[in-house]
């Protein structure tokens, strides 16, 4: 009988990139195996929900939960793992702020379902739609119910730590695993509950090596249309870069490769609404005092809501478009 502390990882509404990022820590994965007993990790090993059900409460030491809460199954497992785990980490952008699946909150749920099952790209001539409960001669069948809005993990259960990133950078994951192992050995202490781990406090701009001057923007443009100066701040060149509101932690990978920051590390410390912070930052640097000219400059931002809420819609104050959120009123 092993006495190693137990480790679990689960995916809810996510793409699987977080798991790949965990495997990308290379030989450090052996340290995970050395120090932990992996009890539940659907992507990597065979495990059944009933095995988790059978565990004592708080038996798992560390659970990394990636993915947002899209349906009743996600919520059920989130609650189950919360009960069974001492430390529950919202791992990756989906669990912390909704991420790409959270973009579905722009659209009412009936349209989301229609797009998935009733558009010309789907072969479904009889327009068969999923039914949560279905009677067959052998008995009743159940599938999970889809929820009107995507939720972040924190909106469903109590979360101990948040680890942002889409996916979290492997060196940050390795550092967090190192920390937990040191804590197990009694050489370090865990950060206070509710902390963001595996990332910095400031913004991506602080890590970005491009030159920054006073920003004055006369025109916004998409990156593929601009001849960008490789050494100058992208936002200064009118390329909508989300760096000013995004948490540091990635090492400014995108701007150093010539692409704008899209904001996958989520809001920086102290930012309440990520999109609002970006609206503030972008609007402040527009070089015009004339209403019509400002309007003309803003036309260059083709999809402002998508630009500002690409990763953060479900975790934002409004949580979705008006049509999607007010569905729950009916």
């Amino acid at each position, binding site marked *: 009988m092993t006495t190693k502390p137990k480790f679990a990882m689960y995916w809810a509404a996510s793409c699987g990139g977080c798991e790949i990022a965990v495997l990308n820590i290379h030989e450090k994965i052996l340290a995970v195996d050395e120090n932990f007993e992996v009890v539940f990790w659907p992507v990597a090993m065979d495990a059944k929900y009933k095995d988790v059900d059978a565990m004592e409460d708080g038996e798992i030491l560390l659970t990394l939960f990636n993915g947002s809460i899209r349906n009743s199954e996600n919520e059920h497992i989130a609650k189950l793992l919360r009960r069974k785990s001492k430390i529950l980490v919202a791992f990756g952008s989906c669990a912390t702020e909704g991420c790409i699946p959270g973009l579905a909150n722009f659209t009412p749920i009936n349209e989301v379902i229609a797009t998935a099952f009733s558009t010309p790209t789907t072969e479904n001539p009889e327009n068969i739609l999923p039914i949560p409960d279905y009677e067959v001669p052998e008995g009743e069948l159940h599938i999970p119910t889809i929820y009107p809005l995507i939720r972040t993990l924190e909106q469903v259960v109590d979360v101990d730590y948040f680890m942002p990133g889409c996916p979290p950078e492997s060196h940050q994951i390795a550092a967090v695993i190192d920390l937990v192992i040191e804590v197990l050995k009694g050489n370090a202490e865990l950060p206070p509950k509710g902390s963001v781990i595996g990332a910095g406090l400031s913004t991506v701009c602080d890590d970005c090596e491009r030159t920054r001057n006073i920003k004055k923007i006369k025109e916004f443009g998409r990156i593929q249309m601009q001849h960008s100066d490789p050494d100058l701040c992208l936002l200064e060149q009118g390329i909508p870069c989300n760096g000013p509101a995004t948490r540091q932690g990635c090492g400014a990978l995108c701007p150093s490769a010539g692409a704008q920051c899209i904001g996958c590390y989520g809001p920086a410390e102290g930012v309440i609404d990520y999109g609002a912070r970006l609206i503030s930052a972008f609007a402040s640097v527009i070089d015009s005092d004339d209403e019509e000219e*400002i*309007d003309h400059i803003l036309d260059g931002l083709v999809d*402002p*809501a998508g630009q*500002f809420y690409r990763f953060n819609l479900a975790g934002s104050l409004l949580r979705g478009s008006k049509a999607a959120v007010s569905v729950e*009123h009916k």
Partner: protein
Amino acid sequence: MTNDNFEPVIIGFTCNWCSYRAADMAGTARMKYAPNIRLIRLMCSGRLDPTFIFKALAGGADGILISGCHPGDCHYIEQNYKALRRFQLTKRVLIQMGMEPERLKLFWASAAEGAFLTSEINKFVKVIRELGPLNWNENNFRVQIPIHSIEEEVLA
């Protein structure tokens, strides 16, 4: 959508140096405006963080009014232009997210324009009353904003 029992909740952000004083002036001159508006005093319309607008809407507001000094009159030189730019961009985002553009309004009112402020507020309340409730907050879901206690008191 018009509902006779509907009383709109409107949050008004006003500048300390002009619109808030215009409201004061309206008060001392006994000019009446609809009680649906809750005025919040900012030191400048340029202090208006779009977060305030989103929080108000998510917390159940049906309309947002922003008022500052006339162009060229800003107490802080040019921050009302910044407010204008933020207003325009915030409005674009909110329209894209399905809000009627009439629910967010910006106008300039100096400290002497109590009567103008009253009439603008009354007009705005009428527009929102006709639009009906916004309902951008989910049932049983409360907006939560982390509040950190102030660690150090800075004396003026």
